[in-house]
């Protein structure tokens, strides 16, 4: 190979190549931009989390328990406090909050604070400074959403159980908590000294007791947790260190960011397709030049290198611009994802991320360009004397196969590197490949079908337009691929989003309950029921709930099981958690019996009490039909036998349980109740909740519409982030589409000019173009929609485990929009041919 010639030729040819394919490199720019932005952002978040790790926890160490701190643990805490460390306590539970001034209620997350928490970071409030005054009386700080929902203002009275507080201000930011948490569980902070006054910490309420420690020597935290590990475990107290907390946050944010990265990667792959089709067209136009160079003595390798170098250089240009774009977008991302960030993220330049983006961009441009470039090798010098019909035939030799292999490996490697999990990466790459293959196959089928079933009797313009689909230099594959891929990406995302949102709307059908009333004590049952009736509604039968813990499996105590390190062990969380059981004599709508028998028949005399276990839990505990579980029900041990396994549809808005007892076993155990009711109007729901809370402050109500609202906000925030990243794909797809149309424009323009010369009117030329693009746009739109429907169905059914509903109209809308865009772009690109004088156009084509 002649290096100096290669360089000189690449430089000279490059002057005009920029015009032809430089435009496509904008797709590489967008793809690289998306990746650099999201990966830099990921690095920013990780750095911020590690920098502010202590702020995330607000302390050096956190102890957490479902019960008040046991004496053994309290003793340690007291001794630590006595030796220069600080301890702060936060007690939290869910309860109704009521503002008497408006009569409105809302389920909130109440936190009673005592001591100096947070030791690291500041609580921001509005008005500023309310935090330091919180402990100075019966004051409450609330999330803004609480104020809005209750219709209350700062200074109003707020009732939590039997206690009354003055709303002193709103929480703007709590260290270590993302803003979205205020949407999911709106917070009410009160001084711990008034917790008892609420009278809500009694039986049946789910309370979380936390102790936050600031150690005299912060570095001691891990050692401290290790030293007391056994004691804490025995007391069922969890310990979280700064490092663990940071890692947890970093991991979950990383998964989210990586998912967004996959959306960005779609843009880069689309860019790759764009480069491939651009180079394909480019090479076709260069065949004569290649043949002349070969005539003049250039070897195959030299000519190949000239064009490969051009692709690489343009890839470098595109990727470099992409890095700059990425760094600009990186600055925007914290604003868009603010709701999910527990720490302030300041964008920083990460040279490795930028370099990686640059490398990936060049590599993608080269590897996607390589496949069509290989055709250059097959040009014979003879073609300088004789123009071939439709370019050289592709040779399927080892090199072509190697390039194909490298291309597949590139896509898989990029997907795996970007995906939250290697398998997700493989699945993503496979989905992209299958989609591209199907779209390519459909385009091929269209060219075959139109040739085979050519509409011979159709009007001339239609025949001409249809013929454009299969004639040499047609753009059928390029346009179908890009438009179809775009529709696929947007369509499947939309389907998943709609299904997630409709999940709850489905349950809001007129016959479904929309209010859960829970934490009803034994002696409040009749009262609550009659109160609901007084309001004119009927409550479903009260469901009893009996808290219990696992004491033994098949006679082996939990402690023994936990210490056993040999063989498969039951999952720790499943052995340790507090269960909330119920008992009844029938299955409910959200349940399905998978194995064993329901207790329709009376038990055999002397048999163990029968229970039905949810399949997933049975798997976690490693138990099946016939196994025995001993339960600790408020200190009383009850041995039971598993006689059936159930599948439970947790997504249904019903009271679902891991374990259901046969009636008669738990009747005497301390029980709380829950009931569902349907209250249609918002105002009526508010009134009922107010009266419930006033009469029974410990009883809570969960409004389905509120849950729905929360979910919509949550999904909306996520969708915003996804849409933002998808913008890159859309822009990339548009560029490829415009480019595909533009590259074949010369061909179309020449034909159109010829047609005009032969007497065709502008209208007819337009109709020819329209026929072609309508066919292309419809095929791409339709195929993309079908593929999106299949992908959406798979995601909804297998990933989110929901029943699938196809939002046909919206999906059709996306497909139609894509088809219309295709036609418009095609017609606008062809407009030139209609406006300009034939001679000028023919001259330009000759260039």
């Amino acid at each position, binding site marked *: 190979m*002649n290096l100096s010639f290669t360089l000189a030729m690449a430089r000279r040819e490059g002057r005009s190549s920029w015009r032809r394919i430089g435009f496509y490199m904008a797709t590489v720019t967008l793809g690289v931009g998306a990746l650099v932005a999201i990966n830099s952002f990921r690095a920013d978040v990780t750095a911020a989390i590690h920098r502010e790790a202590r702020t995330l926890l607000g302390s050096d160490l956190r102890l957490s328990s479902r019960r008040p701190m046991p004496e053994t643990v309290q003793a340690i805490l007291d001794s630590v406090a006595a030796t220069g460390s600080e301890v702060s306590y936060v007690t939290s539970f869910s309860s109704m909050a009521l503002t008497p001034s408006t009569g409105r209620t809302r389920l909130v997350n109440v936190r009673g604070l005592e001591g100096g928490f947070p030791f690291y970071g500041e609580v921001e409030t509005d008005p500023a400074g309310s935090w330091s005054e919180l402990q100075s009386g019966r004051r409450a700080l609330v999330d803004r959403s609480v104020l809005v929902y209750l219709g209350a203002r700062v200074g109003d009275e707020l009732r939590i159980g039997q206690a009354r507080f003055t709303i002193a201000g709103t929480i703007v930011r709590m260290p270590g908590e993302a803003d979205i948490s205020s949407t999911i569980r709106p917070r009410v902070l009160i001084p711990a000294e008034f917790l008892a006054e609420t009278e809500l910490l009694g039986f049946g309420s789910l309370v979380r007791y936390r102790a936050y420690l600031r150690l005299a020597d912060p570095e001691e935290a891990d050692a401290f947790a290790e030293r007391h590990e056994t004691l804490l475990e025995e007391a069922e107290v969890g310990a979280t260190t700064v490092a663990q907390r940071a890692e947890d946050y970093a991991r979950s944010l990383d998964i989210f960011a990586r998912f967004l990265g996959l959306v960005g990667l779609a843009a880069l792959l689309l860019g790759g397709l764009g480069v491939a089709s651009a180079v394909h067209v480019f090479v076709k136009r260069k065949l004569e030049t290649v043949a002349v*160079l070969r005539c003049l003595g250039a*070897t195959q*390798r*030299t000519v190949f290198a000239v064009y490969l170098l051009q692709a690489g250089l343009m890839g470098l240009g595109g990727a470099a611009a992409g890095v700059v774009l990425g760094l600009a977008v990186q600055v925007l991302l914290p604003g868009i994802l603010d709701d999910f960030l527990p720490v302030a993220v300041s964008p920083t330049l990460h040279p490795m991320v930028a370099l990686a983006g640059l490398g990936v961009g060049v590599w993608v441009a080269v590897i996607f360009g390589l496949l069509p470039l290989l055709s250059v090798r097959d040009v014979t010098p003879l073609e300088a*004397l004789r123009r071939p019909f439709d370019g050289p035939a592709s040779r399927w030799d080892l090199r072509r196969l190697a390039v194909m292999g490298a291309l597949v490996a590139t896509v898989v490697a990029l997907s795996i590197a970007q995906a939250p999990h290697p398998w997700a990466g493989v699945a993503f790459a496979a989905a992209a490949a299958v989609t591209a293959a199907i779209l390519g196959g459909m385009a091929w089928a269209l060219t075959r079908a139109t040739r085979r079933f050519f509409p011979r009797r159709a009007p001339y313009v239609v025949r001409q337009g249809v013929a454009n689909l299969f004639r040499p230099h047609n753009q059928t594959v390029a346009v179908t691929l890009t438009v179809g891929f775009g529709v696929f990406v947007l369509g499947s995302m939309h389907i998943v989003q709609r299904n997630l949102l409709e999940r709850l709307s489905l349950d809001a059908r007129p016959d479904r309950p929309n209010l859960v009333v829970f934490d009803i004590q034994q002696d409040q049952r009749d009262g609550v029921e009659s109160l609901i009736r007084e309001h004119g509604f009927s409550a479903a039968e009260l469901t009893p709930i009996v808290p219990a813990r696992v004491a033994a499996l098949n006679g082996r105590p939990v402690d023994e099981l936990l210490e056993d390190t040999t063989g498969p062990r039951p999952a720790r969380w499943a052995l340790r958690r507090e269960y909330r059981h119920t008992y009844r004599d029938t299955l409910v709508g959200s349940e399905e019996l998978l194995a064993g028998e329901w207790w329709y028949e009376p038990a055999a005399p002397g048999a163990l009490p029968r229970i039905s276990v949810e399949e997933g839990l049975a798997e976690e505990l490693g138990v099946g039909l016939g196994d025995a579980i001993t339960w600790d029900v408020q200190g009383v041990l009850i041995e039971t036998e598993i006689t059936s396994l159930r599948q439970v549809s947790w997504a249904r808005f019903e009271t679902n349980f891991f374990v259901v007892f046969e009636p008669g076993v738990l009747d005497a155990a301390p029980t709380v109740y829950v009931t569902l009711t349907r209250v249609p109007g918002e105002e009526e729901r508010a009134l009922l909740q107010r009266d419930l809370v006033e009469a029974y402050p410990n009883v809570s109500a969960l409004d389905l519409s509120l849950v729905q609202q929360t979910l919509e906000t949550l999904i909306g925030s996520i969708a915003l982030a996804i849409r933002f990243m998808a913008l890159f794909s859309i822009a990339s797809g548009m560029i490829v589409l415009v480019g595909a149309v533009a590259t074949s424009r010369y061909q179309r323009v020449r034909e159109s000019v010829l047609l005009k010369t032969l007497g065709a009117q502008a209208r007819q030329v337009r109709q020819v173009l329209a026929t072609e693009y309508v066919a292309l746009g419809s095929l791409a739109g339709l195929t993309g929609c079908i593929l999106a429907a299949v992908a959406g169905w798979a995601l909804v059914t297998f990933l989110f485990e929901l029943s699938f509903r196809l939002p046909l109209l919206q999906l059709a809308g996306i497909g139609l929009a894509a088809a219309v865009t295709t036609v418009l772009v095609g017609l606008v690109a062809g407009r030139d041919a209609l406006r300009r004088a034939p001679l000028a156009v023919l001259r330009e084509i000759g*260039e």
Partner: protein
Amino acid sequence: MIIAEHLEQTYMSGGHPLTVLSDINLTVEPQGFLAIVGPSGSGKTTLLGLLAGLDRPTAGRVVLDGEDLGPLTEDARARLRGEKVGFVFQTFQLIPTLTALENVLVPIELRPRAADRVENPEQRGRELLTRVGLGERTHHYPAQLSGGEQQRVALARAFANNPKVLFADEPTGNLDGDTGHAVIDLLVALNTEARTTLVLVTHDQELAQRAHQVVRLSGGKLVT
């Protein structure tokens, strides 16, 4: 300089073999001037391609400046062309993205070793362009030149490497009479100056008469 023995060329066309040339034998002496004439479709261009090593014959052999083209690889033949052969095409075949000067420089720059290249290629290029009367248009692109001017650039390119043999495929086929004559005069003059062997395909009887040697093709066979 060129020896062709029993040349035969058969292509597959629509699944059937199509013999374009059969049993061609000819010899061209160094500094000779061979004109290949014949009606359209008689195989003139195919013969030119085979003599220049642009394609492999189905049977027979070609010896160019003492080298048998048969056993040479594709790349070796490319190198041979680069060193010993110049081309002039009917459709000029200038590279549209390069200026006139850059087009002329291509064969020189293609030489693998710098030592094999002429000294100061750019000056050589300018001289050649001046020689063909385009000294003022070195930085023009092909699209900015007329047909005759383009063919003159092609002539300059053909002689850039001091080739031993020049192959010309109907060099005036795309030009009007006067321009065609001017190009031919220039071609013959350059050929004489450079002492090049010339093989030329043409329809032009007048031009053919200027050749030292004329072969007539008809239906793929030599008719003398």
